[in-house]
C-alpha cells in the first residue's frame, strides 16, 4: 500500500504531524471522558440524595 505509507509519512513530517494530532486527541478525549464520568457519578449520587431526602419521604 504505497499510498497509505505515503499518507502516514506526511512528506517526512509524519512523526510531528501524527504526534500533534495524537496529543490533541488524547487531551480532548481524556477531558471528555473525565467530564462525562464525573457527570454520571454525580447524577447517581444526586438520585441517592433525593431518595434519602426527608422532603421526599414526607411526601
Amino acid at each position: 500500500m504505497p499510498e497509505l505509507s505515503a499518507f502516514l509519512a506526511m512528506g517526512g513530517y509524519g512523526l510531528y504531524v501524527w504526534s500533534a494530532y495524537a496529543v490533541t486527541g488524547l487531551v480532548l478525549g481524556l477531558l471528555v471522558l473525565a467530564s462525562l464520568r464525573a457527570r454520571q457519578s454525580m447524577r447517581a449520587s444526586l438520585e441517592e440524595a433525593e431518595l434519602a431526602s426527608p422532603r421526599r419521604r414526607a411526601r
Partner: protein
Amino acid sequence: MQAAPLCGLSATENAFITHAATWTEVMAKALHRLANPARFLRIVAPLLPWTAAGAAVCIGAGLWFGLVDSPPDYQQGDAARIMYVHVPAAWNALAGYAGLALASAVALVWRHPLALVAARCIAPIGACFTVIALATGSLWGHPMWGTWWVWDARLTSVVILLFLYLGYMTLIHAFDEQGTGERAATVLALIGAVNLPVIKFSVDWWNTLHQPASILRMDGPSIDPAMLLPLFLMAGGFTLLFVCLVIIRMQTELARRRVMALRRAALAVPQASDA
C-alpha cells in the same frame, strides 16, 4: 438651561444612551431568566446532543480535509497540517479566557449565580486547549525552527495565558469555603482580563527587541483557500466541543450543589425535631 437634556448631549447621543439603557435592561432580564438553575438545565439539556453532533461532524470533516483532501503548504510541506489543530486550539484557549472574564464580570456585576458556575467550568477546559496549543506549537516548531521551543511572541503569550488559567484554578480551590474561592477567583479573572492586553503588548514589544533574525513566520502572506476550509471546520468543531464540555461540567456542578443542599437539609431536619 436646566431643561437641556442630559447636560448638553445631542439628540442622537441621548437616543443612544436610552437605547443602550433599554438593551442593558433586556440583557439583564434575559440573564435573570437564565439564573434559575432548573430552567437553565431544561434549556441546555436538549441542546447538548445537537452541539455534540455538530462538534463531531465539524471535527470529522476538518480531519478529512485537513489530513487528506488539502494540498501541502508550498513552504512547510505536510508539517503545516499541524496548523489545523494548533491554531483552533489557540483560538479556543483565548476565547476561553474571554468567556471566563465575561462570566466573571456578569457574576460580579449582576451577582449571577450561574455565571460563577460557568466561569469555574470554563477554566479547566480553556487550560486544556492552552496545553494543546503549546504542545502542538512545539511539535510544529521543531521541524520549522529546528528546536522544540522558541520564545516567540505568540508562544510566550500562550504560556502566560496558561499561567493565568492555572492561577485561577489554584485560587478557586485554595479556600475552605467554596463560595469564597469563587469570588476571589472572579476578581482575579477580571484583573487578568484587564492586564492581558498590556501583557500582550509588552510581550510583542519585547519580542521585536530580542527578535532572532532567522525565525520563520508561521503565517504566510496569504493562506491557500483550500487550507482555510479545514482550519475553519476544526475551529468550529473545537468551539462546539468547548460549549459541550462547558454544558456537561455545568450540569455536573449544579448536580453537585443540589446534592450538597439535600445533604445539608437532611442533616438539619433531625436537629430541628430534637429542639
